[in-house]
C-alpha cells in the first residue's frame, strides 16, 4: 500500500524513472559508505602497523589479508560446513524457543492457574543467564546437537515470553469491550483480538532475543563442538590462527545481520498496518 513512498526513501532505483531528477543527491541513500570506510580505515591502520609495529602485526591482520585467507579456508570446505551447521542450529533453536514462548504466553494469559503456578518459577529461573547452564546441559545431554539447540531455545524463550505476556496485558480494554458488544465469544476475543494485538510485542521480543540467541549459539559451539562458526574461533585459538578468528567473527556478524533482516521483513509484512515513528511524524 505504502510501497510507493518507501521506494523513494529506501533508495531503490526504479528502472525508467530517473531518481536524480526527482531528488537531489543525498548521502542518506548510500548506507554502504560508512561500512566501506570502516574497512578502508582498518586496512590503512593494519598496513601502517605492519611497518612501524605499534603492536604485533599478527594481532590485527588487514581486511585484504583476511579476504585471501578466507578464500584459502573456503577451499577446504570448512567455511560452508560451519555456516550450514550454525544456521541449522540457530534456526531450530530460535524457532523452538519462539514457539514455546508464544504457546506458554497464550496459556499463561488465558488460564489464571497456569500463570499462578508458572510465573514465580519463571521469575526465579528467568534471570539466570542461559550460558551458565551450558556445562550442566553438556553433562546431562552430552556434546551432541541437543544441548546446543536446547541452550539456544532457552535463551530465546525467556525474553520472547516476557514481551509476549506484556503484549497480552497491554491490549487496550476498549478493543475487548467493543468485541464483547459486537457479540464475540471469549474464544473469539482471544483469537481475533488478543492474539493480533499482542503479536507486535511478540515480534519485538524475537528481535531482542535474536542477539542473545546468537551469543548462545557461538558459546555452545566453543564448548564441545566439531563444527560451526564458534568452533572455528576455538580451533583458531588452539593453532594461533588469528586471521581465522577474524574470518569467523565477520561471518557471525554477517549471519546475524541476515537473520535480523529476515525478521524485519516478516515484521514489515505482518505489521503493514502499523505506522508511526519519526519518519511518519515528519515527512520531507
Amino acid at each position, binding site marked *: 500500500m505504502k510501497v510507493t513512498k518507501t521506494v523513494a526513501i529506501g533508495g531503490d532505483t526504479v528502472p525508467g524513472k530517473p531518481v536524480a531528477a526527482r531528488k537531489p543527491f543525498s548521502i542518506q541513500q548510500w548506507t554502504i559508505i560508512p561500512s566501506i570506510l570502516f574497512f578502508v580505515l582498518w586496512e590503512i591502520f593494519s598496513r601502517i602497523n605492519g611497518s612501524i609495529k605499534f603492536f604485533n602485526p599478527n594481532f590485527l591482520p588487514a581486511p585484504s589479508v583476511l579476504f585471501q585467507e578466507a578464500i584459502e579456508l573456503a577451499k577446504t570446505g570448512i567455511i560452508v560446513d560451519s555456516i550450514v551447521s550454525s544456521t541449522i542450529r540457530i534456526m531450530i533453536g530460535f524457532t523452538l524457543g519462539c514457539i514455546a514462548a508464544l504457546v506458554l504466553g497464550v496459556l499463561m494469559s488465558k488460564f489464571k492457574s497456569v500463570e499462578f503456578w508458572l510465573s514465580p518459577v519463571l521469575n526465579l529461573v528467568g534471570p539466570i543467564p542461559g550460558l551458565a547452564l551450558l556445562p550442566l546441559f553438556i553433562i546431562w545431554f552430552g556434546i551432541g546437537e541437543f544441548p546446543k539447540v536446547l541452550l539456544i531455545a532457552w535463551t530465546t524463550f525467556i525474553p520472547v515470553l516476557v514481551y509476549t505476556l506484556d503484549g497480552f496485558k497491554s491490549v*487496550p480494554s*476498549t*478493543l475487548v*469491550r*467493543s*468485541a*464483547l*458488544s*459486537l*457479540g*464475540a*465469544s471469549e474464544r*473469539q476475543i482471544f483469537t*481475533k*483480538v488478543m492474539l*493480533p*494485538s499482542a*503479536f507486535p510485542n511478540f515480534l519485538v521480543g524475537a528481535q531482542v532475543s535474536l542477539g542473545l540467541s546468537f551469543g548462545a549459539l557461538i558459546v555452545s559451539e566453543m564448548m564441545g563442538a566439531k563444527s560451526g562458526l564458534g568452533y572455528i574461533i576455538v580451533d583458531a585459538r588452539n593453532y594461533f590462527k588469528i586471521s581465522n578468528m577474524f574470518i569467523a567473527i565477520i561471518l557471525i556478524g554477517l549471519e546475524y545481520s541476515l537473520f535480523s533482516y529476515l525478521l524485519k521483513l516478516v515484521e514489515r509484512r505482518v*505489521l*503493514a*498496518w*502499523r*505506522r508511526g515513528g519519526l519518519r511518519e511524524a515528519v515527512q520531507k
Partner: protein
Amino acid sequence: MKLEVSNVGKWFGDRAILENINLTVNEHEFICILGHSGCGKSTLLNMVAGYLTPDQGEITVDGNLIDGPSKSRGMVFQDHALFPWMTVLDNIAFGPEVQKMSKSQAKETALHFLKLVGLEQYASHHPGELSGGMKQRVGIARALAGQPDILLMDEPFGALDVLTREMMRVELQKICSKLKPTILFVTHSISEAVYLADRVVVMKHGAIAEIFEVGIKHPRASHSAGFGDMMSRIEHVLMDEEQHLELATAKVGVV
C-alpha cells in the same frame, strides 16, 4: 425494546458516582445524556453496556436484567476503538462474522453499512490511514453492523474538531432518520444534544437534574424555532449558581 434504569447507584470506594438514577428509553428514541465531565454519565452508559455492574438498583431490557456485554447493545467509543490490524471493511464485518454469519454475507453486510456512512472507497484501508472523523464513522458503521437493539455512544464526537463535529452530527441525524435506531448518547455539548435528541437528560453530581423534551422538528439548525431557547434552559440547569456569577463577571470583563 424498552430499556429501564431503576434506582441505580454506583460507588467507587466511599465516593458515590451515581445515585437514584431512574430512566426509561423507548424504542426508536434518541436520548442524550448531558453533563460535565465527572458527573457519572459515562459510568451510567458503561453499566447499560454491561461493562460495569450497578451497586444498587437494576437495569433491564424488556424486563431482563443486564448481566454483562451483549451484541444487543452496540457501543461507539470516543477513541473509536477500531481494530488497527484489520481493514475498514473487516472491522465492520467483525460483528456479523462473530455472530456466525457466513464470510461473504458478513462482507456484504459490512459494505452496506460502509456505504451508509459514505466511506465505501476506503474499504481496504487500515484505520491508521483515516482521519478522526472517518474513524468515528467506521466506528458507527461497525456498531450498526452488529445489529444491536440499542446503540450506546460515549462522547463519540468528543475528540473531533469543531467543524468535523458539526458534520458528524448532521450525518448521524441522517442515519437516524433512515434507520430509526434506539440511541443512548453521552455528550457534554449542549448544542449537540439539542440538535440530536428526542429527550435530553441533564445530569449533575451523579444524579439526574432534569429531563427536557426537545419538540423541535428534524432537521434542526441553530436558528430553528425554539433551539436557542432550549439551549439556554438546559444551560441554566447545568450551571451552578457561582458559575453563573463567574460567567456574568467574565462577560462584563470582555465588554
